[in-house]
């Protein structure tokens, strides 16, 4: 029986970041209580002790807005309803400004063993542009305190290709991050999503163009690799053994159950999503869902997702598509987009940058 991962979407933010389009609402104690009860109810509903659950992920929103007690209650419920393995990876997304030394110690006691901290940059001018409530000093202090509190698996987010960002500015942030006691970095290219304040402010027109973005990305990959953070996915880098096990589920088409408004799931042979509506989530005995795909994990999807990983795809997993794909490989190889050893096909960093086109070329 395959293992399961659980994702819990925490739809609260103290304030909304200008670039973010994940679902969140304003935090209130009352809403949080209703939300917690609904999460516990749903965990009982989906209860499955027949197979191991080896990842649990609190994403958001700002999950660190929940108290350690609230998070602890949820984790206890997960242990009751699911077969949570002793070595399970339990991740909490957190904002530097929400974490104090004391809180970090309490969080560690709940069983959370991995933090994903929304640092974004180690330059204060960039943090101001991103409208974050922390500065670089605060971010550094939080990371060091988390380490001191016993977190041995810490990830930091890093945003790249900000308007006006130079290569040196980016490498500065990477250097500062790499000095910290962290094991994982998620480095995202800033994208202006529809409906965000950035979109309304016309930030898209200020973004570096494709060529410059590519230069920044490649510089980041090189710098991270040379500092011991190996790339394992388009935007993810880790010291050996610290790859995010939960996120890897998405890319390997492994089962995951999502709980909370706007959470996505893929299990039982169906992809389904919960509407972006906190009140409906709170009011329903079982969270409302809509099926987004009733035959997921097709070859096309597995190619699309597998090629996000540096390990790529094994062509023996795609007997029907194999010959069509192999015909196209030489063109990709000679353009420097991929590596192929006769069996495994994987993209290079240059290939990752063009992955939409490449996946379209190969599988759509």
């Amino acid at each position, binding site marked *: 029986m395959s293992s399961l991962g659980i*994702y819990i*979407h925490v739809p609260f933010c103290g304030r909304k970041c200008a670039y973010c389009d*994940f679902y969140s609402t304003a935090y209130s104690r009352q809403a949080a209580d209703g939300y917690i009860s609904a999460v516990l109810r749903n965990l009982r509903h989906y209860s499955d002790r027949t197979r191991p659950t080896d990842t649990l992920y609190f*994403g958001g929103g700002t999950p660190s807005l929940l108290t350690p007690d609230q998070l602890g209650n949820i984790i206890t419920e997960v242990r009751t309803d699911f077969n949570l393995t002793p070595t399970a990876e339990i991740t909490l997304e957190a904002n530097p400004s929400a974490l104090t030394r004391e809180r970090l110690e309490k969080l560690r006691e709940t069983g959370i063993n991995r933090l994903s901290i929304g640092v974004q940059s180690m330059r204060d001018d960039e943090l101001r542009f991103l409208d974050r409530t922390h500065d670089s000093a605060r971010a550094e202090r939080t990371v060091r305190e988390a380490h001191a509190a016993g977190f041995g698996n810490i990830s930091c987010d890093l945003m790249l290709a900000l308007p006006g960002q130079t290569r040196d500015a980016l490498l500065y942030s990477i250097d500062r991050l790499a000095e910290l006691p962290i094991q994982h970095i998620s480095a*995202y*290219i800033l*994208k202006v999503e529809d409906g965000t304040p950035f979109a309304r402010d016309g930030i898209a027109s200020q973004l570096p163009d*494709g*060529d410059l*973005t*590519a230069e920044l*990305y490649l510089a980041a990959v090189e710098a991270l690799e040379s500092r011991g953070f190996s790339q394992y996915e*388009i*935007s993810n880098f880790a010291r050996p053994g610290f790859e995010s096990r939960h*996120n890897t*589920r*998405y*890319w390997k088409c492994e089962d*995951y159950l*999502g709980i909370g408004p*706007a*959470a*996505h*799931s*893929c299990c039982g042979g169906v*992809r389904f*999503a919960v509407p972006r509506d906190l009140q409906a989530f709170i009011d329903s005995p079982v969270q409302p869902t809509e099926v*987004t*795909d009733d035959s*997921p994990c097709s070859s*096309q*999807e597995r190619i*699309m*997702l597998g090629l*996000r990983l540096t390990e790529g795809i094994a062509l023996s997993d795609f007997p029907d598509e194999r010959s069509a794909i192999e015909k196209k490989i030489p*063109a990709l190889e000679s*353009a420097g*987009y991929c590596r192929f050893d006769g069996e495994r096909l994987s993209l290079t960093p240059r290939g*990752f*940058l*063009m*992955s*939409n*086109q*490449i*996946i*379209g*070329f190969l599988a*759509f």
Partner: protein
Amino acid sequence: MANDKIRNFCIIAHIDHGKSTLADRILEKTETVQLRDMEDQLLDNMDIERERGITIKARAVRLKYTASDGEDYIFNLIDTPGHVDFNYEVSRSLAACEGAILVVDASQGIEAQTLANTYLAIEHDLEVVPVVNKIDLPSADPERVCAEVENVIGIPAMDAPRISAKMGTNIEAVLERIVTDIPAPKGDPEKPLKALIFDSYYDSYKGVIIYVRVKEGRVKVGDNIRLMATGAVFTVVEAGFMDATNLVNNGSLEAGEVGYIAASIKSIGDTRVGDTVTNNDDPCDEPLPGYRKVNPMVFSGIYPADGAKYGDLRDALEKLRLNDASLSFEPETSIALGFGFRCGFLGLLHMEIIQERLEREYNLDLITTAPSVIYKVTMTNGDVQYIDNPTNYPDPALISIAEEPMVKADILTPSEFVGNIMELCQDRRGIFKDMQYLDDTRVNLHYELPLNEIVYDFFDVLKSRTKGYASFDYEMLGYTPSKLVKLDILLNGEIVDALSFIIHADKAYARARKIAEKLKDNIPRQLFEVPIQAAIGGKIIGRENVKAMRKDVLAKCYGGDITRKKKLLEKQKEGKKRMRQLGTVEVPQEAFMSVLKLDS
């Protein structure tokens, strides 16, 4: 009615000099049309004609006029196409008349088309009646224009009626001139039937309607007629004339008259303009002189932008051909563009009109290839080939002589632009013949030019270099040996057949460079770098490079929302459907169109 009371005439004029307006006034004055039924420029009944101010197909109208001598006259006004592309049709229309009213704009004076058509009228022994129009304009100078007509054309013009067709001024003078100056038709109604077809169109109820001028004999309902060029025989169902809006079937036509015949003719191909109609049971000895089959001069591939519309394009072309026997087309396959048609046109304007009608009336989105002329190629083994599609151009090693068609061009211009025009003509490999001052400020330049130099954009460039003042007309001269080469365009090392063309060797480099630049600007950056090369034979003479795109990635694929990413890729795929896929290269249709206008 006796022949001496009939006047058959046409109106010739340069675009915008007021031909249609004068025709309308004549219709109005003769009360052929009640004022309330008047729609401006009644004779032009195609939208495009109206918008462009040109008449594409000839029409004819019968009018009644009571002259100042108290007698009633029948006028047959035969409308002629003004443009050189339809030269042959003009010539057939003229052959149906005894006289022509020459309309000249009182401020513009004589233009290239005026000259071309007047000379044509004189060749047909027509009585030319000059009329100076637009005397209401502040810039009108009728005296100067009359002098110009006398000097340049050499016909008396000092007493030409000065009119304003727009204001209705002095139209009676024109009507009186028609009576007094234009000869009555001759012809014996008792001889065997001999009638000239000068136009035809397809009517979905009656079949093909042919417009005829009866030269000898008579034709009536029930007669068996034979069209002499094709040999086809039909039984006359209707014979009569046209008033301004309707066909009037009065049962017969006889020598001297202009009218129409309907005989349940299914195909317009049977009724060739210029052909002679005779009575199958009592035929004339020989047909009227001058008939020739009209051959297309300019060719272009026409493809539907959406390959699924191929059937629609074929249906549309077939419908257009019902009314336009000079349009030719046959299926053609391009590796780059898929299924389409190789179309032949009388000239550039004809080509533009057809393309525009296909797009406008049939709602088709088209990709057209660069227009080509017909090259004459004599092979080393003595065979002669005519090449209208660059793709079929033979291996140069097998060619002994290559020839290209030449035209004789008249360009009328204010003298200040002579320098610009000479520069343009020289650039287009023109051979200067002579130059003639029409008056102090206006010049007629004669050039011989290769047709392939004017099929692209010559007219547009001429207009822009003369602020719109120059006018241009041409006639075919025949073939002349030329250093021709086939220029191929390669994308990612593969020849794109739809972009190949034939060009003079001296111009190949410059053209190659421009095309490569245009393509570079119009081919978007994509997954792979796109080398653009221009080559003659195996030799690369120009290159550009569309650099590969650097970034197209969905960096974040989190929270397990896979569906969104998949939708994005499906949308990307949809977008690519609008592109032509050539190997790994994606070429938008604009790229094909961009190479058609290189100087703009």
